[in-house]
């Protein structure tokens, strides 16, 4: 049990109605208590981790509530990071998100952290990132610690940093993550953390290696660091809506950005500058963006789906080889389902949120608005407004706190599973077929060119937008 009590969080006060129940004489007779370490361990779990131990079976109202006693490692969620020696971070991938993450990191740690190295494949990205860090947070990154090229990541890792922030296009993430772990660096890496099963397995193995080294890993799934989402999670864990039967998860938004080709750019340069439109670099938008919502479903269900059937298409995307819409049904091993949609098309009505249907009610969450839990008749039971701290900053506070207080914290495996779920949905849409988790886990799919050179790689000439099914 690694959960920490957090002083300034108001969620600890949630009524824990089965706590007394669990600790009663019936359940812990003397004989049982003497029965061995296992029983004592269980007592510890139940006693100290009330929020994660709702094992009441069918005894509570609402029928067969089945939230198993789960070990969920909540982030510390401190508003103020503990003091400590200055932590130096290096940013690998200095585009929009890398620069944003760097600033979030500096805001989270204040004077106790710094950015000491930058790496990217493009000099202009390094320059703009360096300038942003200077103007917004008044931190100077030494020029000699700015590295350009496909091997920049190694130089940043070796530059004497404590933490690396990985924010390149996700295709490169597994290799970078593995290198960072082997160099024993703490990691903040942006989701998605891979685009294909080969990459997922690399991340899973490196995640285990990170655990064995006591490294802390946060993965940019910021909803897991957002007070509002955690409140809803805790309510659901306390049987607010009974047993969850179905989830709906959506990310329907406008067209994302794109870059037209430029005669001065090589093939590789164009693809990387336009990376959110190329499947081998981004994993397509079901992986790159929608994984956020899919991750919430996996988080709340406490497991990942084992099967997907979906479809999708390309209607108005301007560049690249991706789709711009997907609709997928994911199935859990117990038959429960997650319905998923994502779209990046202008001029449509949008929705980015998650809905969980339970036997006693439902919950509604989205990143911007108010989270609401209602009963079956639509009466509001709970509502949660957002906390002051941005989740994009909070996730860095949590990383810094866990490093300074040596709290075990590693999100890589959970995020890898959510990304794999999204990949499974993508493959189903591309092929039109049922795709299973085992097939994905045993797949040798590896997207993109074999070697990375800033030149012509013969990818675009071969690239095709997948068309499922047949004319027969």
């Amino acid at each position, binding site marked *: 049990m690694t959960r920490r009590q957090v002083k300034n969080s108001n969620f600890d006060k949630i009524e824990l109605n089965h706590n007394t129940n669990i600790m009663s004489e019936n359940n812990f007779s003397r004989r049982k208590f003497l029965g061995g370490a296992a029983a004592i361990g269980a007592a510890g779990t139940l006693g100290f981790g009330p929020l994660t131990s709702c094992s009441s079976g069918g005894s509570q109202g609402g029928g067969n509530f089945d939230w198993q006693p789960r070990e969920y490692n909540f982030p510390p969620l401190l508003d103020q990071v503990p003091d400590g020696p200055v932590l130096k971070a290096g940013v690998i991938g200095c585009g929009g998100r890398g620069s944003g993450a760097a600033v979030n990191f500096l805001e989270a740690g204040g004077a106790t952290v710094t950015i000491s190295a930058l790496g990217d494949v493009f000099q202009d990205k390094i320059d703009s990132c360096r300038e942003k860090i200077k103007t917004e947070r008044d931190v100077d990154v030494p020029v000699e610690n700015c590295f350009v090229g496909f091997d920049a990541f190694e130089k940043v890792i070796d530059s004497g940093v404590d933490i690396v922030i990985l924010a390149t296009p996700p295709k490169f993430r597994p290799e970078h993550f593995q290198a960072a772990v082997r160099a024993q660096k703490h990691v903040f890496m942006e989701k998605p953390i891979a685009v294909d099963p080969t990459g997922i397995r*690399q991340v*899973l*193995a490196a995640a*285990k*290696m990170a655990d*064995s080294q006591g490294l802390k890993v946060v993965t940019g799934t910021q909803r897991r660091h957002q007070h509002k989402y955690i409140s809803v999670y805790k309510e659901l864990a306390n049987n607010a809506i009974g047993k969850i039967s179905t989830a709906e998860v959506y990310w329907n938004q406008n067209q994302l950005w794109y870059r037209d080709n430029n005669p001065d750019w090589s093939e590789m340069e164009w693809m990387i500058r336009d990376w959110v439109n190329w499947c081998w670099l981004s994993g397509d938008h079901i992986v790159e963006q929608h994984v956020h919502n899919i991750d919430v479903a996996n988080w709340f269900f406490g497991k990942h789906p084992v099967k997907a059937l979906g479809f999708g298409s390309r209607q108005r995307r301007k560049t690249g080889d991706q789709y711009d819409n997907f609709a997928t049904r994911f199935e859990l091993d117990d038959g429960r389902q997650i319905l998923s949609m994502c779209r990046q098309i202008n001029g449509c009505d949008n929705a980015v949120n998650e809905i969980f249907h339970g036997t006693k009610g439902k919950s509604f969450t989205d990143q911007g608005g108010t989270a609401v839990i209602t009963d079956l008749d639509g009466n509001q039971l709970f509502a949660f407004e957002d906390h002051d701290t941005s989740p994009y900053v909070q996730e860095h506070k949590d990383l810094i706190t866990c490093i300074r207080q040596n709290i075990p914290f590693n999100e890589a495996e959970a995020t890898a599973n959510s990304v794999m779920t999204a990949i499974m949905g993508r493959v189903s849409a591309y092929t039109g077929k049922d795709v299973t988790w085992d097939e994905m886990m045993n797949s040798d799919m590896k997207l993109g060119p074999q070697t990375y050179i800033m030149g012509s790689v013969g990818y675009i000439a071969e690239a095709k937008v997948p068309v499922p099914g047949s004319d027969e």
Partner: protein
Amino acid sequence: MFNRLISFLRKKILLVIFIGFIFGIVVSIYSYKIIEATSTPESCEMCHVHPQATDSWKLSVHYNTRVGIHIKCTDCHLPPKGEGYLKEKIKASARDFYGYVFKDSADFNWEAKSSLEQAQHHVFKASCVKCHANLFPLTLNEKGQDAHLYYTQHEEELRCINCHLNAGHYDPNALHAKNVEFGNAGVQNQEKYNEPAKVESLSNFTESIPGTTVSFEMKAIPGGSFKIGSPETEQMRETDEGPQKTININPFFMAEVEVTWDSYMAFYTATAAEGRSTDTEGSRKNLDVDAISGPTPPYGQPDQNWGLGQRPAITMSYHSAETYCLWLSKVTGKTYRLPTEAEWEYAARGGTETPYFFVGNPNDFKEKGFLGSLFGKSSDLINQYIIFEENSNLKTGTPDEVEANPFGLKNMLGNAAEYCSDWYSEDTYKNLNDGATNPTGPISGEEHVIRGGSFKSGVGQVRSAARDHTQSVAWLKTDPQIPKSIWWLSDCNYISFRVVCEFDEKTGKK
């Protein structure tokens, strides 16, 4: 008197408790010492007379460790303390003491005991994990990373020794890598055949593989009809062997023996290529006979270090066996293929309707107790014909160890199990019509029929009618590659096959 003693003890209760306390401590210390003293390698060796195991242990990485720790017998061969250590220790010492007194350690089949199948009964996973708690150390390379990830995802089904069998006892022949040298030490300086055999009638012939030194005997199998399956009264019968149906089989040729390593290596040498990476299932069509690509180099030792030559080739996948037949057809200009299940059983019976093609019932040949061995039938008869668990030393044998069946075929029963081309179904015979000719089994299925039992089988499974099937998942369980090999099985060392040749216009049919 007694009361006085009681009251004395009451008065001196503290003394009594103190003495008891000291006594308890002394007993604990000494029992701990005894347990420790009887757990040293030297004490193990007092009863375990197996100098080869001691030697191989001293050569292993667990003796001469990088960090200077000595790993003793009991560290691996008993569970960790607190996890059944004492119980297993008592069990093991009782068994070992019995063996020491009543048996001769030279009679034990040490080679079989160090095979994975038997080793799993005396090597405890919990003990491996107790020391090797971190499966992902920084020193682990990427292949190890993949393999250990695979392990963590299949922990229930896998043991450490699936891959690290020789970690505790060094085996100079064990190979834990891609075996690119496999088959390279071929026969030199022998005359090679230029032509395949010419066959003009339905009679036995010797096939020769052009460009190689390999030849093998083919037996002409006359056509006829027979009852497939076994009667309900047959001993050790399984339900999938019925109901019996009478069916017709056209004439064909069948190899006298299971495909030998010599023949298989001719195929491997001619078709294998190093470095292909596209061998995933479905990437190649069986019809591409002009450019047959054969197996990739195996991982480890496909022959289990039992030797090549005339021993049956084993551990190939069904796909490999089929590809072999395509290749053999191409180089000999005949039609070679795997037998159908009906052809196989027809050939195995050689006209007999009894459990075996020789006299006797399964119960006659079962391992017998003392009385049984005095009065029962002798096992000499079955030993003449079949290599099975009682006489095999748990490995395959060569064809000269057994006598042939009425059709002149050897090792149809026992030795290595053989692929048939039919899909397996429990009710194959139910759906079969009396009087059918050359039936080919169910139209579709998931596993193929295998027949004949193997060197691991008991008397019941080496009957002519006994049926079995492939196990696609289990037979590849520990293959760490993604995708898994389509050529070699990582977890089945008892499967082989036998070719049949069609009697058609290429072989003299008018």
